[in-house]
């Protein structure tokens, strides 16, 4: 710290981020391009759904690369957290996770980062969630948190994926939607016969299921987030309710 600080909002506690060693305890494919990675680390019991961690990999000669990944799991007392990492062609960090990582390997994590894009039951609802591709990961954490303790809070997930096979955790989400009358899933697949992009009727349907939202979280590519915010604003939702996170171009 180089300068004096005076924090104006006492409700927000100062946070110190340090690197934690983390050990991979499980790896499993989630879709053809996405792997679930479970990590045991000191951060596992101290994050809010929606937050992300920075992951740092170090080569033999000291070269390092860092990237951000949203946490997919809700805290569950296991001492581990789950990331879901999509393999990008030639991706420096995602490539290591998809082609090389094994149980027992160690990486470093720090966080949790991203307080404004996070939710817990006490923040209330109804919750309108919109995810594109791997942008669904932080929303999955919110839905898992809600399913632990807050099922009375109405929630709808608008989820845009290329195909059903590429939709992350789709079976879990469908099971939840069947079992829980307060949760509805609105899946749009863009690269399948009969598929489509999210549109005004889809968004109107999601809003009709939950009523007037108290919190809106949108995450995905720039294009997805821009399209989803425009559609939601067009339904009369106040801009101040919407929080966005973008994973890249």
């Amino acid at each position, binding site marked *: 710290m*180089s300068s004096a600080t005076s924090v104006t909002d006492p409700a927000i506690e100062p946070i110190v*981020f340090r690197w934690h060693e983390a050990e991979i305890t499980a790896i499993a494919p989630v879709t053809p391009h996405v792997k679930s990675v479970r990590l045991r680390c000191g951060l596992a019991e101290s994050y809010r759904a929606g937050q992300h961690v920075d992951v740092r990999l*170090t*080569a033999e000669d000291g070269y390092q690369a860092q990237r951000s990944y949203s946490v997919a799991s809700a805290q569950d007392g296991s001492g581990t957290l789950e990331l879901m990492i999509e393999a990008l062609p030639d991706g*420096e960090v995602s490539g290591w996770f998809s082609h090389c990582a094994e149980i027992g390997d160690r990486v470093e994590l720090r966080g949790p980062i991203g307080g404004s894009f996070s939710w817990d039951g006490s923040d209330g609802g109804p919750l309108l969630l919109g995810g594109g591709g791997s942008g669904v990961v932080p929303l999955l954490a919110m839905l898992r948190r809600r399913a632990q303790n807050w099922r009375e809070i109405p929630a709808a997930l608008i989820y845009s994926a290329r195909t059903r096979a590429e939709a992350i955790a789709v079976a879990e989400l469908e099971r939840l939607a069947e079992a829980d009358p307060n949760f509805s899933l609105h899946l749009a697949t863009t690269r399948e016969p009969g598929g489509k992009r999210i549109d005004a009727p889809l968004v109107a349907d999601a809003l009709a299921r939950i009523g007037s939202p108290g919190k809106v979280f949108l995450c995905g590519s720039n294009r997805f987030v821009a399209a989803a915010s425009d559609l939601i604003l067009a339904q009369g939702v106040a*801009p101040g309710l919407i929080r*966005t996170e973008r994973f*890249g171009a």
Partner: protein
Amino acid sequence: MVTRGFVGRRQPPETGARLPPGQYLTDDFPILQIGPNPTVDMATWRFTLREGSRPIKAWSWAEFEALPRTTWHGDIHCVTKWSKFDTTWEGVSFDDILADAGIAAPTGYLLAESHDDYTTNVPVADLVGGRALVATRYEGQPIHPDHGGPARLFVPHLYFWKSAKWVKGLRFTQTDTAGFWELRGYHMYGDPWREQRYIGD
């Protein structure tokens, strides 16, 4: 701590020397913000300089566009790890804003304030001497709303979250006062070359 099997994709030496630690080079222009783009009405747009809550001077869009222009060319660095090389920005330097207001900076710190209620703090010393603009053009064109147009603060030697998008004014403060991200764990200063991403770095 070495990660088994990680080799990494090295940058060519000339690129590596221009990249601050922990950054990688991108050709796109990623977008990060807390909510949707705010609607900014050019007819009522004002850029306001304040000391605490007291307004010092405000400019309409036409008045602001009539101020002397400065062009800046170089590299920008985002705390989310991307850097972009050889960008060109044009706008009004902080020095020219102060000169037009007929003042010297009344305090050592300020908060940039945006149309989406975003704020970020910057020491005045980092804005003077031609080091910062209120930018209105990127690569010769009006700044696209996705990148903070019509006007954004532009402080290229700090991480890009300090270059507040959709800026509507600058507020001088008595002390260095944390803004939106600084309250949420980001570094108070944000020097990419010292890798000051988060509090304690």
